[in-house]
């Protein structure tokens, strides 16, 4: 601490930023500010300052490593510029070959979860067993307890990996779905109007 150079190097936020980048490079899931603060043994506000610093450094276009806010936390990923190189070396086992049934099931669990296979089947009108199994195997959904009562069906929710694969900051980032601009009530109203129009 006796030379100016050391002083700069040991600037507390800069040092915290180095700790945060170290944590992020070894973590296998996105880390929240709380988790980072706890591991770094520092306070939330300072961790956020450090993250802002890192955000500038690890930014798309300037760096091959990009800091992103995803699945309720922060994580490193490859820059989009390097996508072709990544595609030559790595696979995307999670989303490869997702069937239409699996995507519909995933949508239901994401919007309505936690929900059980019978509930999913009730909404889709068809059995959900194989779609659910494939989503569990991919790690996109996971068990979340059972329905109440004896012999209750297993319920499922989406995982942080789901948010990560789809690039969502959280489940709240899912878009609102307009059903032809109509909810159930409107649709019923329209059905009745059709009937009355025919009558007149």
């Amino acid at each position, binding site marked *: 601490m006796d030379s100016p150079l050391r002083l700069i190097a040991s600037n507390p936020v800069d040092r915290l930023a180095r700790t945060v980048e170290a944590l992020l490079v070894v973590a296998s899931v996105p880390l929240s500010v709380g988790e980072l603060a706890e591991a770094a043994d520092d306070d939330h506000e300072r961790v956020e300052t450090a993250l802002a610093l890192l955000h500038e450094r690890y930014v798309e276009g300037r760096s091959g490593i990009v800091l992103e806010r995803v699945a309720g936390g922060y994580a490193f990923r490859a820059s989009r510029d390097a996508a072709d190189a990544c595609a030559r070396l790595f696979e995307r086992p999670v989303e490869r070959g997702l069937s239409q049934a699996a995507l519909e099931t995933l949508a239901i669990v994401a919007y309505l979860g936690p929900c059980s296979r019978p509930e999913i*089947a009730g909404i889709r009108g068809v059995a959900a067993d194989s779609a659910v199994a494939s989503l569990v195997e991919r790690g996109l959904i996971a068990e979340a307890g059972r329905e109440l009562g004896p012999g209750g069906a297993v319920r499922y929710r989406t995982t942080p990996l789901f948010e990560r694969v789809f690039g969502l900051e959280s489940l709240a980032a899912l878009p609102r779905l307009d059903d032809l601009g109509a909810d*159930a009530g409107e649709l019923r109203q329209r059905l009745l109007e059709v009937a009355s129009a025919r009558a007149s």
Partner: protein
Amino acid sequence: MHPTAVRELELDLDAFEGPFDLLLTLLLKEAIEPREVDVAAIVLAFIERLAERDEVDLESCGEFLVLISALLELKARSLFPDEAAELDALEPEEAAEELARRLAEYRRMKEAAAWLVQRLASEHDRWFRLGPAPLAPRAERRLAAQDASALAVALRGLAVLPPNVSLSHMALRFPPVSQFLERFRSLLSRRRRFDFEAEVGGFSRVEQAVAFLALLELRKSGEIALSQAAPFAPIRVSRASRSWAAPAPAGRSPAPPAPAAADEPMPSGAVQRTVPSGLDSSATPQEHEEGLEHPEPERILTWTARSA
């Protein structure tokens, strides 16, 4: 047949030519009159398609059932208007509720899935590590002392049958329309009119749906007349004036009451199954009813709230 194939089922009807999904969309947008749509032809097209396959895909059958019943209900609604009924005075009827909910859910689910597909495509150049970093420290999980009785409770839970979880409605069965045609003709040869609900009350919902198809067929061919006091009120079926006189010789009094046995609803077990082999046909009609029950309304509210 893949579920997608159900929606892509190519139809060649008088009123419409194209995929099933498009037909449904046009109906919802009121671009096509439901009354113009020949539901029986769609059922036939599907069954023909099904027969081309070696295996029966329950997913397709289930999806088809959902779609065709929605369509049937749409058509029914447009065929039985009521001049006197005022929109505001109408009670929210269960049937309309159920149909609207089913269609709304179906649309929402499809849109959500489509959004996910789009999202996957737009995020395809985002790469991140799956799994642990190569040189990350190894984590050990530690578990607090546990109570062994929790194991007994867990196992006991697995040894108990769950109540009312039945997916048996997925097993689709179609009694032939002709069976109901014959039945209704024979009924009307003995009686001037009958009450549709009372006749089919004992059947499963699928059977009721097919019975309804038969009713539509008879009306189309001018054999019967239909009347209904109000939307969702009982449907009265009577001989059409021009045709009922023909089989009954003039001067003869109306047919005597038929023997009680003939008037009883056909036991559903007696309905001939035209199910392709491989489908489970052991489920009881009661299971059908349970299987067709819909998710609690709260679920829908949750959806609306979450997606708001």
